[in-house]
């Protein structure tokens, strides 16, 4: 793994007997937008703080650009951080906030001034030099925090849920700006969030964490389409989970007897050691990859009869809960609302066929 710019090697962090981070082992490439995603308390912030140098691993090593930094304190690391609270110094104005790190480096006055002005231009806040932080809005403070970190030209920028405090509209705008900024400066970003949509829309790769463990590291598309376990599938989007029994392996597909659906052909994942013939597995199906029709399933697809239970109209799509004989729980199906007619929708109690293509099924280990 010589191409990795940052290496997290078998890092474990214990607080007493609690394992906040449990044997995290992965690499991050130079210039990558890398996210740590998970519910609160999953260890993502602890992991970020270990990369920043605010916490130190109980076991394991961390390397940045080939240099071991495991025991190096934050002020000696080539990283800078954007804090969740932004941590803008309230006693300093915008200019002095951004110049804070450069003043420590004792840069010549002219160069310092140029770099601060460039940073202000980058975040479109030129002319706001003399403002204090309590005169700035949330979005502006967030950009000041970004500039204050980036002006030091760190090798890695660490972001701890930087968009969490902003309202929805502003958050979406800042996501876009953040992505643009990362492309422009080309610095490696490590981004912590609990918001899966945010992680999906921003990241090159995402590490999904739960209870201190890294479950899967993959691109957004791969995480969504080919999760490697129930937890990841559940955390990223919505998924129906059906119990099944592997009957046969046939080339790149597994023939699985699934409760309620009967025999299906599910594509085999890269690592299918968990699914030998005779093994109990889970078959996952995203609601939007299923469809509800009257009569026969779509051509080339399979179908099963069911009854519509609850319906929800969501404007751009409809959600249906479908009861299927032999299935212990209801199947969730999401259909697109393509036109304004009401013909495409179904009513509770209606008998329908749920239609699916084999390729939309995901084979998962039984948990």
């Amino acid at each position, binding site marked *: 793994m010589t191409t990795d710019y940052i290496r997290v090697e078998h890092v474990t962090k214990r607080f007493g007997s609690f394992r906040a981070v449990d044997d995290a082992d992965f690499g991050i490439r130079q210039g990558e937008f890398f996210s740590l995603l998970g519910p609160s308390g999953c260890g993502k912030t602890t992991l970020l703080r270990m990369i920043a140098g605010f916490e130190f691993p109980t076991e394991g090593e961390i390397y940045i650009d080939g240099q071991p930094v495991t025991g190096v304190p934050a002020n000696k690391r080539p*990283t*800078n951080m954007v804090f969740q609270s932004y*941590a803008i110094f*309230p006693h300093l104005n915008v200019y002095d906030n951004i110049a*804070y*790190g450069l003043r420590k480096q004792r840069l010549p006055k002219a160069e310092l001034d140029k770099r601060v002005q460039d940073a202000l231009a980058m975040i479109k806040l030129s002319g706001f030099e003399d403002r204090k932080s*309590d005169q700035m809005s949330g979005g*502006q403070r967030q950009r000041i925090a970004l500039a204050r*970190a980036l002006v030091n030209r760190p090798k890695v920028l660490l972001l701890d849920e930087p968009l969490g405090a902003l309202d929805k509209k502003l958050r979406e705008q800042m996501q876009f700006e953040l992505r643009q900024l990362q492309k422009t400066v080309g610095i490696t970003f490590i981004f912590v969030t609990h918001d899966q949509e945010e992680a999906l829309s921003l990241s090159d790769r995402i590490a999904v964490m739960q209870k201190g463990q890294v479950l899967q590291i993959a691109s957004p598309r791969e995480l969504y389409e080919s999760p490697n376990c129930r937890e990841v599938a559940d955390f990223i989007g919505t998924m129906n989970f059906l119990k099944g029994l592997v009957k046969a392996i046939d080339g790149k597909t597994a023939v699985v007897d699934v409760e309620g659906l009967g025999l299906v052909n599910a594509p085999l994942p890269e690592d299918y050691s968990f699914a030998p013939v005779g093994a109990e597995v889970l078959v996952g199906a995203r609601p939007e990859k299923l469809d509800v029709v009257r009569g026969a399933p779509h051509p080339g697809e399979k179908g099963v009869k069911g009854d519509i239970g609850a319906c929800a109209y969501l404007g751009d799509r409809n959600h249906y809960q479908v009861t299927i004989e032999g299935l212990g729980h209801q199947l969730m199906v999401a259909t697109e609302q393509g036109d304004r007619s009401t013909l495409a929708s179904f009513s509770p109690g209606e008998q329908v066929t749920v239609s699916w293509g084999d390729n939309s099924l995901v084979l998962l280990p039984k948990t």
Partner: protein
Amino acid sequence: MSRPLKKVGERSVGITIFAFAYLFFLYAPMLVLPLFSFADQTIFRFPIEKFSTKWYEEIVERPEMLRALWNSLQVGLVASLSATLLGLLAAKAITRYAMPGKTLALGLISLPLFIPEVLLGLALLIILNVVGIPLSLMTIAAGHVMLCTPFAMAVLVARMDGFDKSLEEASLDLGESGWMTFWRVTFPLIAPAVVSSLLLTFIVSFDEFLLAFFLQGNEMTLPLYIWGQLRFPSNFPPVLALGTCILVASCALVVFAEWLRQVGTPGDKPQVGV
């Protein structure tokens, strides 16, 4: 549970009367001091027949009184500076470091507040005697440091607990050392509390009597001098005049400290629209 709150002022005539009575009993006796300091008589008795400012003019003719005042100012300055410095170190340790025995340390530092001062004074006197340190203004100041440090610590702990610790982390993250982080971030942010602590501990020291009584050498502090003058009623009115001056100065100081606290607290300022 969710009873609507009563509006103050509607059915609260009783509580208003109580409040004013309370304030009257609290502060009316204080007004006696300035009142008699302007009375042209040496006996405290109503009615006051004639007012004058002659006792104020006499202040300057009492060198031993001014000397006691000067002594008190010196002791107060040494005690408040030392106590605030010690309190700052304690507050930093208590709010920023995980250490064993933190609660015990906090308790031990606060203990002098709860030990009867008579016993404290006696114990200190015995120790100084045993070790052979002669009594002086500095021994009084040392005793006052003991008494003032818990106050300083309480004020400073509250402020240091109150501000976002990620500000200090941000400074470290931007490459600054721990020591310079203290001077560039922590100190400017707690400066109002430091001033508060200085004023509070100064006042505690300035009016302290018992420890000063035990630990005094040849020099007196102002409270000791005032107590001594009680035996000579005819000497007393100028003391009242000086007392009034000190009262006014104290009030001005408190107002100043409060103003400083409000100016120095980020976020208290009215928001300016962008």
